[in-house]
């Protein structure tokens, strides 16, 4: 694996106020790479989903730490890792199904993973019950490509 050309890591408590902070942190950091507006919007949206999952599902009854790490590689490849040390996911495949939610009463649409999947190039979810969950999201920033 090649070395990143730039990277950052922030750790913050699972307060819902910090969903906004996570989005701002990611877009602020990525500004050096001069992403297109819609690419940045996609990444912000996916990060918002992943961080919300940590807050709502990872730490349903407690406040725990969330780590957000972003690495940028050559050719505009961005890798974002969002991890918590919360309760973990019992059945990842089921959790990722569109419209599946364990909290319908709180108006959760069950579309978090669907949004992450459609807004990013790649998504990888690893989880261990009682240990936590890590989501890795990847997207290659536009090469300002010619037709």
């Amino acid at each position, binding site marked *: 694996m090649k070395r990143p050309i730039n990277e950052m890591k922030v750790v913050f408590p699972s307060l819902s106020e910090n*969903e906004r902070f996570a989005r701002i942190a990611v877009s602020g950091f990525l500004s050096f790479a001069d992403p297109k507006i819609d690419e940045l*919007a*996609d990444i912000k*949206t996916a990060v918002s989903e992943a961080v919300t999952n940590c807050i709502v599902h990872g730490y349903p009854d407690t406040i725990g730490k969330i780590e957000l790490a972003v690495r940028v590689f050559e050719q505009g490849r961005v890798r974002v890792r969002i991890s918590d040390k919360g309760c973990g996911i019992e059945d990842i495949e089921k959790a990722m199904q569109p419209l599946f939610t364990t909290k319908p009463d709180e108006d959760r*649409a069950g579309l978090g993973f669907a*949004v992450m999947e*459609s807004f990013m190039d790649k998504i990888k979810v690893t989880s261990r019950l009682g240990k936590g969950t890590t989501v890795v999201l990847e997207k290659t920033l536009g090469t300002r490509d010619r037709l």
Partner: protein
Amino acid sequence: MGVQIIAAGRVLCAKLTGDIDHHTARQMRCEIDIAVRENDAQELILDFSGVTFMDSSGIGLVMGRYKLMNERQGRLVIAKTPGYIGKVMRVAGISRLAKVVNDYELPKQTGEVMKIETTN
């Protein structure tokens, strides 16, 4: 940031502003639901023109209000969605739940118009 509610008879318009995420959606939902019940609304217009960001929490907000209006035999209208929000709406297939319009007009009211503004 928050929601501004304008009632014109039984038509209720909720203008959402700022970012809609899990944190902010809670308050917005609450304000809208109270106003829908208090005004016995038959039509709820959600105006997204002032929304700067939205993730699937906004979809949850739309789906929840759809259910509420459905229970009341009323209808839901989604209005003025900025381009970047349209993408999230499309992932969820929101156009199957509500009429999506670019613009709308509230019925002329001689009576009082209720305005609630919240911040969060």
